[in-house]
């Protein structure tokens, strides 16, 4: 299975309680529901199409409880989110729950990374993570995420739990696609591209990093990683009516690199 992570973020990276206030969590966060003003037709279409592409869900305990309480009550067979979320298998990561009651839910216990890796090997299709920040960071640490779908909202909260909190495993990513909704949310799709290869002063002098960087990106291309999303019809449909952005023609691989460009200004890149 491909494991995809979908996350609604503020510009300062906060992900918690995007849909509604959750005073029952007693975590002191008072800005729940911050995402609601940005939910427009574009966002609706985009996220509904993502969910329609799911074959199973992988959820942390908090997100599981939130989803189970809400979506199990939505019985409209015409609701594309509810039908998928209620019907499809849900794997729940928790060290405190001993049972899960939402239809077709299973607890994942023991070695989380091993269990998720096994799921990915054994099943086909798309395993979707929504919310679940702590789980996402664990998956990142073990290299189990295949795609990030980040929806960056034009608001700065100043506090709250962040998806990529301090201590996140450093990751280089490849930008796959980008779209803007009518209310100023920017959707950015990334796939992992290994570890960041930092430009050290020594490597700079030897010119080694330029070579490394080029080879890393060239390797990404030749490994046949998708540059576009044509292999996922649902995604393309979701993007079809959104305002297009100029997006990744693969320039790095196809144009001559100005080596100087990387060695000097990149160091002082603002």
């Amino acid at each position, binding site marked *: 299975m491909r494991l995809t992570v979908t996350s609604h973020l503020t*510009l*300062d*990276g906060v992900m918690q309680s995007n849909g509604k206030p959750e005073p029952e969590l007693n975590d002191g966060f008072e*800005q729940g529901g*911050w995402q609601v003003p940005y939910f427009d037709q574009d966002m609706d279409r985009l996220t509904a199409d993502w969910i329609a592409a799911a074959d199973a869900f992988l959820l942390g305990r908090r997100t599981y409880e939130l989803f189970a309480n809400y979506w199990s009550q939505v019985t409209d067979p015409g609701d594309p989110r509810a039908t998928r979320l209620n019907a499809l298998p849900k794997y729940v990561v928790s060290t405190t729950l001993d049972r899960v009651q939402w239809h077709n839910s299973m607890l994942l216990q023991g070695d989380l990374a091993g269990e998720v890796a096994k799921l990915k090997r054994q099943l086909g299709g798309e395993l979707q993570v929504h919310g679940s920040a702590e789980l996402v960071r664990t998956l990142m640490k073990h290299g189990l995420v295949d795609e990030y779908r*980040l929806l*960056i909202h*034009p*608001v*700065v*909260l*100043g*506090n709250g739990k*962040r998806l*990529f909190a*301090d*201590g*996140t*495993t*450093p*990751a*280089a*990513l*490849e*930008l796959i696609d*980008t779209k*803007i909704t009518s209310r*100023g*949310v*920017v959707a*950015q799709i*990334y796939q992992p*591209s290994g*570890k*960041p290869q*930092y*430009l050290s002063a020594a490597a*700079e002098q030897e010119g080694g990093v*330029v070579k490394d*960087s080029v080879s890393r*990106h060239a390797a990404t291309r030749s490994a046949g990683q998708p540059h576009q999303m044509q292999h996922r019809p649902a995604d393309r449909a979701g993007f079809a009516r959104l305002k297009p*952005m*100029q997006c*990744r*023609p*693969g*320039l*790095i691989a196809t144009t001559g*690199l*100005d080596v*100087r*460009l*990387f060695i*000097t*200004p*990149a*160091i*002082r*890149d*603002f």
Partner: protein
Amino acid sequence: VRKLVLQMGVSLDGLVARPGEFGAGGWGVPPEDPALKARKLDWLRAAGLHLMGRATYEEMAGFWPSSDDEYAKPMNDLPKVVFSKTLTRAEWPDSTIASGNLADEISALKREPGKDMIAWGGATFAQSLSRLRLVDEYRLVLQPVALGDGLPLFAGLTSPFVLDLIEAKAYSDGAVLHVYRPAAG
């Protein structure tokens, strides 16, 4: 009244500085897309004043005067204001030290005639500008990397704020430019 633009590279985890490193070159991101560079050069040439915190000023003052990059000319030619309570000398040509209250200093600069001002960070200076609501436009280059450790663009805010997305554009190096202005009201 002229605008204060905060222009910075930001990692996907919201950081603008990696400990001990400066800028995107220390972040392991690909070479800058020439189209993005052209855009930034246009902005630079349209600016009237550079604003910097002390550490960023010292790093840039040690770098741009001897650089032959295209960025160097506008970086060297435009006047600079460095915000510091401790600095006594600023030797990069056409530099002024501002040591007073930040909000007052910025307000006075905004009222002066001239073209827009670009603030380049670093992190502490940028955080103060946002906290005091002095930024009229954010030009953020979101780099395709999570750093895991570093200094955030936003910190110490006393209240949330809403922005209008003016523009977002993806570049072939994987960077995404976001331009925001504070929403009215």
